[in-house]
């Protein structure tokens, strides 16, 4: 298996799906001539031409809506947000058009579209350019939300998302584009949406982590191993639909759970996971579910403050020790 970056894994997925289906096209700011602000779309304009790789004006609401309309008429758009921060301008079309169209049309109009781009914390770009929005989208029935944490997952999940007949919010972590990992060559490699992945097995505590927090959770698990605490690390990978069963199964075994996320805590995905675990596995819990979340503040610019705002290995370790009363 080739070892490639998250960036290149995503690029492969896009290339393969564009090759596979004429109805798939890619649009967004700087996805073409510029080769993508983060180079995820490198080479695609050259290979597929201007018809299928389209540079848009800076009009997020407009081109998001255009994408949804194109999907209504039978195409399968991939709309890139240069970063998900800018999707805030397009939420009306994502929520009111993409997510609800199938339902309010009584099942007549499915919207096979992928909205993708980097999300979560970036490097020193302050609060308007550094935030986690997955809970916003996951709140709405009709949308699917995906957040990969490895190159292989990224490729397999993106290919599935593009083939899915529903609107999918696909959030790539801006800080993880350079992350390397093994990726199978298989052009038919797809990973089902709604299936969590146990990234590490363990018996004393369950750590549920997504996106940027997965590698940190694995590091924490190693540290804890030294301290004699065996952690199971689960990456839900898809936030909606959410594979709660895999998590409950694990918690019934470990009786303890920690949720790690870089997002704000209030009404975040961690809150949902914590509530769900408690509702379904209350009698198995030896300790309350602990959340390790990003600081409940807008993201500051200064490096030292930014570092404090994003959870690290230490906080995850501490939380696990807390739930294991060790």
């Amino acid at each position, binding site marked *: 298996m080739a070892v490639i970056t998250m960036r290149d894994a995503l690029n492969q997925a896009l290339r393969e799906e564009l090759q596979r289906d004429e109805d798939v096209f890619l649009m967004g700011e700087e996805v073409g001539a510029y080769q993508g602000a983060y180079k995820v779309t490198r080479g695609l304009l050259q290979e597929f031409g201007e018809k299928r790789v389209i540079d848009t004006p800076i009009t997020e609401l407009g081109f998001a809506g255009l994408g949804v309309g194109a999907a209504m008429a039978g195409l399968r758009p991939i709309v890139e947000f240069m970063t998900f921060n800018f999707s805030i301008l397009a939420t009306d079309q994502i929520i009111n058009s993409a997510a609800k169209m199938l339902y309010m*049309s009584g099942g007549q*109009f*499915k919207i096979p579209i992928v909205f993708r781009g980097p999300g979560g914390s970036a490097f020193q770009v302050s609060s308007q350019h550094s935030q986690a929005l997955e809970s916003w989208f996951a709140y709405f029935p009709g949308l699917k939300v995906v957040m990969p944490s490895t190159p292989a997952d990224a490729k397999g999940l993106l290919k599935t998302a593009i083939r899915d*007949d529903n609107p999918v919010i696909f959030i790539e972590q801006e800080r993880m584009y350079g992350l390397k990992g093994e990726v199978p060559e298989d052009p038919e490699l797809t990973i089902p949406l709604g299936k969590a992945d146990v990234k590490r097995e363990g018996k004393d505590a369950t750590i549920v982590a997504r996106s940027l927090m997965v590698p940190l959770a694995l590091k924490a698990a190693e540290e804890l191993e030294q301290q004699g605490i065996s952690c199971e690390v689960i990456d839900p990978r898809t936030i909606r639909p959410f594979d709660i069963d895999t998590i409950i199964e694990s918690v019934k075994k470990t009786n303890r759970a920690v949720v790690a996320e870089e997002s704000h805590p209030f009404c975040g995905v961690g809150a949902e996971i914590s509530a769900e675990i408690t509702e379904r596995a209350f009698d198995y819990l030896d300790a309350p579910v602990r959340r390790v979340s990003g600081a409940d503040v807008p993201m500051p610019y200064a490096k030292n403050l930014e570092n404090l705002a994003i959870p690290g290995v230490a906080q995850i370790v501490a939380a696990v020790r807390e739930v294991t009363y060790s």
Partner: protein
Amino acid sequence: MSNGATETRSRAGADERSGSSAIAEQPKASASTPGNEESKKLKRDQKRRLEDTDRETLIQLFRQMLLVRRFEEKAAESYSLGKIGGFCHLYIGQEAVAIGCISVLRPDDYVLTSYREHAHAIAKGITPEAVMAELYGKAGGCSHGKGGSMHMFDSSVNFLGGHAIVGGQIPLATGVSFATKYKGTDRVTLCFFGEAAVNQGSFHESLNMAQLWKLPCIYVCENNQYGMGTSLERAMSLQDVAQKACAYDVASEFVDGMDVLAVREATQRAVERARKQSLPTLLEFRTYRFMGHSMSDPGNYRTRREIEKHQERDPLKLFRATLAEEKILSDKDFARIEEEVKAEVDKAVRFAEESPEPDEGELYTNIYADEQ
């Protein structure tokens, strides 16, 4: 304006193109206070257009306008009886626009519009039964009772809604036309919206993309001069909607929306441009809403007098008069058509009354395509 597609507009002379607010007044004046001269001239134009339209089409246009008029009257009645819930935005007074525009489309062309869409839905081919049943929230409705008054859909006739966020359908329609071009077809997309929607960013963003990418989308602004209780003047710094096309180099026309044949003619030009050259057009039809914004509108933002003045140019009345004068239809014919239309509307109501409520299980269907 460019592409010389300004027949109607250019009547008023060159300075009309200068973008000064002066012109903004011209069309407004022409439509909202029709002087004697004006209406004589309109009559002449209408007669001229009559010649170019075959009898069958003329009758069909009248019949359809009457049908949606009676349909809306009945909807209002059912609403008052509490049989229809939610909002209910009636189209009475604007019939010439939807009927005229859609009459020049092919069945495979697309239509998207706002929440004020009963007439458009019927004109595009959804049965009055299915539309009325949707208003009743019944399983037999065109959206199976899930969409309601503001969200009529029917994929089989290429009617793509029924959208309730002001301006929301504009980027969607732009995308539909993007898809027809992408697929190499010559299908045209018609997008209706009110003049107040023009103030939304989505209008601005869409027209730029449409001209930039040469999309076969026709943007139809139904300028009924009010956005809910707010008159055009109180919401728009430059009230000449067609003129706004100049910011995007999009072709545009300002047209009397009370004259169904003028509407047809202008739409035909736009459809040509879209089908043959794959270019967008902005059409402004000056019209007027005779009823409230929705059934709950107290309407104290305008005078009876103003409404009556506009009712003198009731599109249905105007067209009926022309057809009579031209001996295209006799009083007997009109009576017969009234009969047929009444029967059709009654049938729609019966269907809606008898159609069952959606099965309770429907609450959890159609959320994701997978389960389909």
